[in-house]
């Protein structure tokens, strides 16, 4: 094999020498597939949504137009504001709980499990629920939380309560619980990743300088975990802001979210109104992400 060197390759290359692309053309060619995919499946749909949001509509049809009516209706209605506030409330509560749980799970994995093999095994265990669909995992809460579910019947049998607890299912509590269950891993993963990169000798250096365990946590580990927390926050906040199925199923239709409102508008064929709502939501989420990126520099992590 090693003897097949220059003479052979010369023979193959020589007749093709006439046609050569310039380096610039090659670069553009290499970037083309991704550009086409992103253009066709991301930019074009968003552009279409933005265009449609200015159209007129009635019960049966959309009419190309340039009206700001959809935005005026959306932003002028107190229902919209209430729904946005409700969605933001979910986002804040779910974010706070997932940060708390996610940080401690990641901290335990990164600092208290000694072998890398065990760390990987336990991390994979965290991802096991993701082998089933979101909807299934959500619905499986119903037999647990329902009026005659495991928790209620267990509490009644043990004599702690006489009447089933009503707020366990079809309530904001159920929505938050399901969201935390669905999204905590998106917080664990990036935080675990940043914690794994912390040099363990930094912890020793801090201890050498007289830091207590709490001081090590607040002065060394949490500051260094900030980029991971920021990335996890972006995941969780965008997921919660766009969620409609969890809210619909777990609140039993008693709570609303922005995405659920859009879904309802679409089922009433009010596409331009839903599009306007989508644009408003997109702007809001992008502003939130921009805000997070202003606070924490995540470039080091990417």
């Amino acid at each position, binding site marked *: 094999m090693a003897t097949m060197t220059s003479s052979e390759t010369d023979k193959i290359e020589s007749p093709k020498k006439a046609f050569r692309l310039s380096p610039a053309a090659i670069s553009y060619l290499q970037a083309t597939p991704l550009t086409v995919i992103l253009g066709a499946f991301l930019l074009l749909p968003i552009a279409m949504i933005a265009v449609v949001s200015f159209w007129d509509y009635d019960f049966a049809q959309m009419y190309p137009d340039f009206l700001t009516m959809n935005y005026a209706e959306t932003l002028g209605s107190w229902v919209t504001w209430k729904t946005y506030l409700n969605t933001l409330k979910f986002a804040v509560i779910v974010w706070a709980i997932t940060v708390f749980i996610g940080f401690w799970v990641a901290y335990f994995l990164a600092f208290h499990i000694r072998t890398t093999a065990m760390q990987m095994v336990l991390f994979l265990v965290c991802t096991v629920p993701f082998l089933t669909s979101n909807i299934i995992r959500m619905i499986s809460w119903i037999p647990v939380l329902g009026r005659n579910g495991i928790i209620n019947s267990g509490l009644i049998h043990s004599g702690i309560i006489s009447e089933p607890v009503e707020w366990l299912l079809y309530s904001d509590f159920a929505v938050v619980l399901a969201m935390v269950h669905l999204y905590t891993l998106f917080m664990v993963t990036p935080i675990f990743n940043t914690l794994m990169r912390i040099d363990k*000798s930094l912890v*020793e*250096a*801090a201890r*050498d*300088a007289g830091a207590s365990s709490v*001081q090590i946590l607040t002065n060394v580990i949490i*500051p*260094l975990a900030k980029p991971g927390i920021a990335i996890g926050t972006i995941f969780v906040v965008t997921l919660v802001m766009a969620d409609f199925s969890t809210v619909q199923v777990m609140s039993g239709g008693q709570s609303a979210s922005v995405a659920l409102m859009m879904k309802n508008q679409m089922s009433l064929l009010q596409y331009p109104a839903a599009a306007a709502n989508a644009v408003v939501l997109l702007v809001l989420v992008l502003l939130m992400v921009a805000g997070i990126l202003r606070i924490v520099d995540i470039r080091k992590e990417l």
Partner: protein
Amino acid sequence: MSKAAEIDIASVSKIYGTTTAVHAISLKIPAGTYCCLLGPSGCGKTSTLRMIAGHESISSGDVRLGNTVVTDLPPARRGTAMMFQSYALFPHLDLIDNVAFSLKMKGVEKDARRAKALEMLKLMQLEAYATRRPAQLSGGQQQRVALARALITDPEALLLDEPLSALDPFLKIRMRAELKKLQTSLGITFVHVTHSQEEAMALADIIVIMNDGRIEQAAHPRVVFERPATAFVARFMGDHNVISGRVISHQGNRLKLSVPAGGDFLATDVGAAGLSDTADIAIRTDHVRIGAPSEEGLGFTGSVSNVEYRGSSVKLTVNGAGVEDFTAILSDTEFFANPVKVGEAIPLSWGPEDAIVLGRLTH
């Protein structure tokens, strides 16, 4: 700020599960000395240092610093400060906050601790970089920051874990001189772990040579160089040829050794411990001369297997009389006055005081 403390290590062991990293070592490091723990990797030198620092629990035995037994105290309450191998500077803090870290942990006011940290940085000539992050500094500057951070606690002993290993050779020599100067001016005890013989020779007041969890020799560099205690020390320091054989006669301080299938050698016994019917002797490589010996047993004839020119000296490798790879270092003038070639047979000789009997550790 001269408040150096003596470090007394009393039969300290470190056991990890079923393996013993350090076998009941005892060592006294006098106050204000520069002590180097020297040995190959895995010899237990770093474990020893970390036990003094309090980052490793002591399986048995005690460590005393000054007048206090610190065996069970946390690192920060021992009066020691440690400088880590990779410096372990906090990447998210600027130099002032890095240096002021331990003061912050103690709850010192922000202005007071920043002023003290700036003073420390000035001492290290780093005040111009005070607001930079560690990643923006060179290796030598990072080391000085780590020193400043360790010294701001006003320790009685500074523990350095291979402090020079991350630096390039030129910087290594410069920082070495700076470390020595710092130790002299502060007057505190330095304990420095290294695997470089040259570094230990250059810096130490006491070299502690460790092998396999035991101390082979703890002495002034000159004693280690001229009177290595064991065959391991002689080989590890690299300035002696070690010849092993059976003892034929041992009269007064004269010992005669017979090498299997080879010649007999004479050596001076300067108080070697643990002698049995076999023994090792050490012969200074730089005292070997080309020429017939003055007395039988103080030389041999062998063939040259390698000649290495080193500028001011020439290193010959000679095989013969049952001795493999015997090294002779000749000065360049001496060698070129009468050059020899690979394959030539030459007589080698040395003085009676250049061959000494080595001891053995009794476990």
